[in-house]
């Protein structure tokens, strides 16, 4: 006799199994965060954040790497945000679906899929070597800008699409030109959505290592100009852990990374849900 479960029983078994696997995924996430914070939080202190690393990071804090990370991200965003938002405006407001928009979207999608090590290779050969920027904030920031551009394009495009047509029609009916409509009506309404993309990009940049280490270098000094090399937090963490310089400082740095990522995600989630609630 062939043994077979009734559909109802089968469903119960499958349901249990799926629940277990989903719970496992959540457990892994919780475990990683808990593990890093448990070892890292005791290391964290105001001094850890505000003092420069001493003896390659064995002693002292992470101040210069914190500054390095922030400066690099600001530069990346200053370059990528206008390009990304501009592209999104062009795609949504200034053209209809055509071969041109297909090419533009193709470029953005491909760029999104390129692994960070390729960006690192490119940044190294183009910015560091060809343009002679050296290992510097400039090289690292531009490389990061290229990397986050697709994220900003995609989120801005979606945000702009969410702005109701009526808003535009009202502006036109009052005699507004295309650009007046875009800059004074559409963009302000889409701003929270665009901000989501920008913050997501910050998240990606904070954790980025492969693309940064070959373009911004790993100097521990406080940067003095756009042409000085700098070390970001994640590069610092990588070097601390891999070269076994200091496990406790590594945990501390990892805790700072994890906390910033958590904050960034909470903020994006909040902004996004508020934005969606407004227009749907």
């Amino acid at each position: 006799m062939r043994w077979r479960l009734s559909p109802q029983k089968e469903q119960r078994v499958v349901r249990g199994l799926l629940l277990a696997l989903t719970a496992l995924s959540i457990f892994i996430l919780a475990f990683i965060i808990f593990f890093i914070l448990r070892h890292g939080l005791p290391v964290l202190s105001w001094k850890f954040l505000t003092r420069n690393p001493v003896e390659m990071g064995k002693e002292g804090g992470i101040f210069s790497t914190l500054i390095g990370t922030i400066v690099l991200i600001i530069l990346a965003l200053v370059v990528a945000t206008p390009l990304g938002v501009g592209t999104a405006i062009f795609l949504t407001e200034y053209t209809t679906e055509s071969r041109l928009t297909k090419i533009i979207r193709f470029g953005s999608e491909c760029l999104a899929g390129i692994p960070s090590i390729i960006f690192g290779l490119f940044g190294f050969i183009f910015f560091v070597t060809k343009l002679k920027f050296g290992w510097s904030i400039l090289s690292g920031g531009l490389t990061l800008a290229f990397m986050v551009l697709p994220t900003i394009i995609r989120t801005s495009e979606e945000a702009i699409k969410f702005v109701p047509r009526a808003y535009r029609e009202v502006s036109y009916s009052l005699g507004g030109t295309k650009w007046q409509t875009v800059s004074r009506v559409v963009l302000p309404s889409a701003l929270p959505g665009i901000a989501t993309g920008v913050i997501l990009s910050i998240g990606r940049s904070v954790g980025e290592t492969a693309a940064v280490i070959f373009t911004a270098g790993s100097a521990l000094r406080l940067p003095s100009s756009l042409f000085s090399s700098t070390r970001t937090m994640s590069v610092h963490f990588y070097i601390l852990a891999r070269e076994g310089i200091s496990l406790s400082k590594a945990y501390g740095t990892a805790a700072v990374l994890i906390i910033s990522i958590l904050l960034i995600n909470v903020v994006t989630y909040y902004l996004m849900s508020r934005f969606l609630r407004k227009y749907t």
Partner: protein
Amino acid sequence: MKIREDREKFIRLLLLAIALSAISILALISIFIFSEGLPIMFRRGIKAFLLSSDWYPTEGHFGLLPMIVGSLLVTAGAMIIGIPLGLAGAVYLTQFSSKKVRMVVKPMIELLAGIPSVVYGFIGVVILVPFVRDNFGGPGFSILTASLILGIMILPTILSISIDSLLALPPTYREGSIALGATEWQTTRLVLLPAARSGIIAGIILGMGRAVGETMAVIMIAGNATSLPRSILDPVRTLTSNIALEMSYASGEHRQALFATGVILFIIIMILNTIANLTSKRMSS
């Protein structure tokens, strides 16, 4: 009136130029990677690069076979871990849980994608490597370890794209099947999963691309040996780690050979992205 029109025209042109930035950057990256990497490949013969397993860059031997095999095995391992976890989560959250649970759990699992890859590598080194060494043998730095970590890293990609494509199906599919007396699981297995197939496959391929391209985590846990592995407990080096490990001190032909590694990686990624794009386009049309 004329000035205003001119201004509008100028803005339009400016935006067009900006909009071409992404594709121009893509072209720039391709040109530079290929122009640095291709010459040495042709000079030495593509076969020597792809099929030789001798990587002695200082003596002029640039066989990339162990790294290609390493990347493939580690990626395959990551799929074995990531696909079941990602799909199970997607099915559970769309079919068996309330919307409220989904709205909380989905962003939580997506948070896994935000954790920096160096942190994954670190967790791998301090927890997984000793665990594998003590329980399965070998050095611990292995295909198995790397697969486990990469599987977790690609899980959010697969989960969230699968959820989106399951939710994009017309509700009538589900209602019709349930009305005919099928259970939720029968509905999922026989109706919904096949209907959402192309979206799910696109998610899996994007996850695959992420696994192939991952660098820092893999360097820290895969062991980086340049010989062909014999078991999943052996250390391997991937294409990405090969570049990252030697870039800082390579020069001359050695550096070109690393760019050649980049060329191969670039081509693999482009193929995967194109397949993912085409499958998800087919779904939306």
